[in-house]
């Protein structure tokens, strides 16, 4: 690990000022310290933001507002979250391990880096780690990689579970920077790799995530998260799906669906959603709609199985959501 300075801030103002002069935030540290130890990430100055008053979880009308520093554990255990947005709670406890969930903040979770093995290896080319050095994964071992949103420069998947749920639920994020506050959909936080895979998110220099806001809706209780993996726990998703359905008299009025493990960012599937609206809760309907998820999919040498697993995961997640009370 390269040496760095570490300072603590106690106000949002001070945090933004520090970040504006090139310092980097550290919260739970579970991604950052891991990558710093590998020297994949090399910040020279860290600002510990854990003392900022951003850990609150509150209900505002039908919205759920989660402070950026709220820990995964606390969000998942929050009675209001479990009542209003069981999907969020479910996606959180399917992620990482109890210890890591005690450490990791929601803000850090959204900003976590990819799990491509070559990204972590200095002796392999990686356009994300070292722009224009090449991609070892595209012609290498890529069973875990994305089939959607890839470019010729990068095909790494975004690893977060809760981000998939948040994208499905049209969550927004509130950020503040040197030029003031702004709010935008969580979905817009994530950039596609294109030819700049080293740029992963849309935060501007100095911006700090303050909170994530999840609007309530008629579908938010009929919503489930399905994570498919070889190990029953403590493993990243091969494929995951967050599905929320608003059903009246057996007919789908609204459907929201996002998937993980297959995209270079948490992947919203609006064409699949459209194909479900006005249709009954029927497996055949789900199967037909789920095939639409593969539009534009580009498999690599090792991940063809995701072309099969993705629609199956969607079908099953929709069934689960349909069965949810």
């Amino acid at each position, binding site marked *: 690990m390269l040496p760095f300075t570490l300072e603590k801030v106690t106000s949002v103002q001070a945090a933004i000022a520090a970040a504006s002069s090139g310092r980097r935030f550290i919260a739970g540290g579970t991604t950052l310290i891991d990558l710093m130890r590998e020297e994949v990430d090399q910040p020279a100055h860290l600002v510990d933001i854990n003392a900022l008053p951003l850990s609150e979880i509150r209900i505002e009308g039908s919205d759920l507002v989660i402070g950026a520093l709220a820990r995964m554990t606390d969000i998942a255990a929050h009675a209001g979250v479990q009542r209003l947005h069981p999907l969020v709670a479910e996606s959180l406890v399917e992620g990482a391990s*109890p210890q890591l969930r005690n450490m990791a903040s929601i803000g850090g979770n959204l900003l976590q880096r990819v799990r491509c093995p070559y990204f972590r290896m200095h002796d392999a080319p990686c356009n994300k780690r070292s722009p224009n050095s090449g991609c070892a994964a595209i012609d290498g071992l890529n069973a875990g990689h994305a089939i959607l949103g890839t470019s010729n420069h990068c095909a790494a998947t975004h690893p977060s579970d809760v981000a998939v749920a948040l994208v499905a639920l049209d969550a927004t994020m509130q950020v503040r920077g040197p030029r003031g506050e702004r709010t935008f959909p969580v979905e817009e936080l994530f950039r596609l790799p294109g030819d700049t895979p080293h740029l992963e998110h849309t935060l501007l220099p100095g911006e700090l995530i303050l909170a994530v806001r999840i609007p309530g809706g008629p579908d938010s209780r009929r919503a489930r998260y399905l994570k498919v993996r070889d190990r029953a726990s403590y493993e990243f998703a091969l494929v995951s799906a967050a599905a929320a359905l608003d059903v009246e008299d057996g007919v789908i009025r609204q459907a929201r669906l996002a998937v993980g493990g297959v995209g270079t960012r948490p992947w919203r599937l609006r064409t699949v959603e459209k194909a479900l609206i006005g249709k009954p809760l029927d497996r055949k309907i789900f199967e037909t709609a789920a095939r639409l998820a593969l539009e534009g999919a580009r498999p690599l040498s090792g991940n063809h199985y995701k072309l099969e697993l993705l629609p199956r995961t969607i079908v099953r997640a929709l069934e689960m959501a349909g069965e949810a009370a």
Partner: protein
Amino acid sequence: MKNDERLTDGAVETEEQRGGLSRRSILLTVGGVATLAAVSEVAAQPISERPPSASTGRVRLVVNGRQHELDLDPRRSLLDVLRETLDLTGTKKGCNQGACGACTVLLNGRRIVSCLTLAAMHDGAEIKTIEGLETNGELHPLQAAFVEHDGLQCGFCTPGQIMSGIGCIAEGHAGSPDEIRFWMSGNICRCGAYPGIVAAVADAAKGA
């Protein structure tokens, strides 16, 4: 066994000033086939921008009820402070990547992996490790239950399992064997003592 100067660890640790120096490999072409090794110049900042000194000043940690004032290299993980600075070697380093749970301790009452946090971020924190569980020579009920239910073999993951189990019980996640299995899945046991671990946590939870 441990000399006193090591307890203050880093007073002399003025860190390298040429921090941008980093490992490089070279692009190799053999018979027209480029091998995987490639130029990867990873230095993020010019050398001159690296901090000249990396001391954080004094960090106070209360470990098993005992206060320590340490002058730490900010890079040092809580795990390495416990093991290498304080010689509390009961907490184990299994992967140093947050992927095995062997280094689990309680930080202000919550179970965490101590390999993925910087000690310098926890000024004033209370840390409980496996060495701090006995009371007047009596095992903590979960320690006793691990022996009784044979929830261990080699014993290397055991301190982390026990600290995690204490967290699991305190969180209210030890209501059934299935619940325990889910909430104890952050601690890998390669010997495969899982059934005994579940039985031990269930047993201790009954008395908690």
